[in-house]
């Protein structure tokens, strides 16, 4: 059996063991899994890796296979362990020729409509204060943006940096809500195994 075949055939039991190793609480383990995966993807992308998603998943699969061997002896930050494995995966990636990834930033009409519909729904779910803040924060064109945000911050009695942080946190909530809205059946991390 080839290594590639072995990687594809990650068994559910290995994945469950991985989650259990991350945290005994399944909910917290799932959240931690998502955060680790995001870090891996972000770092790989920053390194210019055109297969960031695939290498991140490969990293997680390798860790999952090794949990049975290391869970009793590994001491330290578990997330850091992923970073080490990822470096190995990335080195292997650099040694093999990879076709450049073509990025298509356009979106079809259907997707566009779906996103706008989800955005409306998710905006309605926001608390009135959050909704008003995000609307005002984004209601700015290129030139007026800075001044307007200073005005908003002054009105709220906070620093512009604090305003930015609050607005981006709401923006992040919207992002999560929209992604769930567009893929309601997706139930990560359990859905990715196998």
């Amino acid at each position, binding site marked *: 059996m080839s290594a590639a075949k072995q990687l594809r055939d990650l068994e559910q039991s290995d994945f469950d063991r991985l989650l259990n190793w991350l945290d005994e609480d399944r909910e917290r383990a799932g959240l931690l899994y998502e955060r680790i995966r995001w870090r891996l993807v*972000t770092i790989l992308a920053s390194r*210019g890796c055109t297969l960031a998603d695939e290498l991140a998943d490969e990293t997680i699969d390798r860790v999952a296979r090794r949990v049975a061997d290391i869970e009793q002896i590994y001491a330290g930050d578990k997330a850091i362990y992923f970073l080490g494995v990822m470096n190995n995966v990335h080195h292997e990636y650099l040694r093999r020729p990879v076709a450049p990834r073509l990025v298509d930033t356009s979106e079809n009409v259907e997707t566009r409509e779906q996103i706008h519909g989800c955005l409306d729904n998710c905006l309605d779910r926001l608390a009135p204060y959050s909704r*008003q803040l*995000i609307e005002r924060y984004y209601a700015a064109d290129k030139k007026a943006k800075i001044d307007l945000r200073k005005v908003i911050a002054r009105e709220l009695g906070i620093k512009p940096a604090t305003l930015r942080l609050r607005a981006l946190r709401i923006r992040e909530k919207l*992002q999560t809500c929209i992604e769930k809205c567009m893929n309601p059946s997706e139930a990560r991390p359990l859905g990715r195994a196998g």
Partner: protein
Amino acid sequence: MAAANQQTFSDETIRRFLLGGLNATEQSGFEHSLFIDEAFEERVRLAELELSDDYTANRLSHAERNLFRQRFLLTSDRETKLHVSKALHDNFADRTSIARSGSWQTLTGLFDFRRHAWKYAFATLTFILLLLATALLVRKERAHLVNLPPRRVLPKPSASANPQRANHPPDSGAPTHNESSPILPLHEGLTTSIVLDAATPLESAPTISTSGEVLTVQLMLDEPLAESYAVNVTTAGGESVFAADALTRTEGTTLGFDVPTSSIKSGNFQIALTGVDGEVKRAAGTYYLRVR
């Protein structure tokens, strides 16, 4: 360590990391911090969203835009982020030019009719207004019908060339006026006073309905006039029901006196007038009266 790392990397450095612009030393330290510092991780996560928003809003330089496409848009997750950035930009950015002032923007945010709540409220308001208008219309129509005078059929204003032909067709012959004249009503009313003339016979005497306690009778006197008068009211059978004397003229040739209505219930009555001049008495006239 974590706090130190958080201070080490500025927002500008984070953006360079996302665009793949850090050198090897910076990259290594950055990656390690990303794995051990949760607060720093959040900063990077939010900066990733902001970078996507800035790209959509055309707030990146030309070089940054190129890096964004080549080094940032490498994952499906980031592509989704970019789509959401575009949706947000489409939704909100065009409102800026209208409302820059804070208070004005607050108001527009509150009265943004694109909100679902406003859509429902507007629909409800329209429905209520329609109902009210309908109710008002129906009520007004009813009031109009109640106050409407009976419809009158007016004769055509145009005169015919031959009115007789138009109104009396030649083949029908002259209409016979078969309807009998109605019996003229008696002179009735709530008469409390009556003027009588001695020249009026019983057949033409006025008929009255008594009301009140007394009937004021005014007699038209004939010449020669007397100093005083005496009256005697009798029934058709000659029974005296009322009498008075020493009556004097009230004005000119009129003599007035009151007769209790209880004395003259119904029937024909005769008033015999006697003129008195000193010791001399003479008949001054007879008056008739009918009571119903």
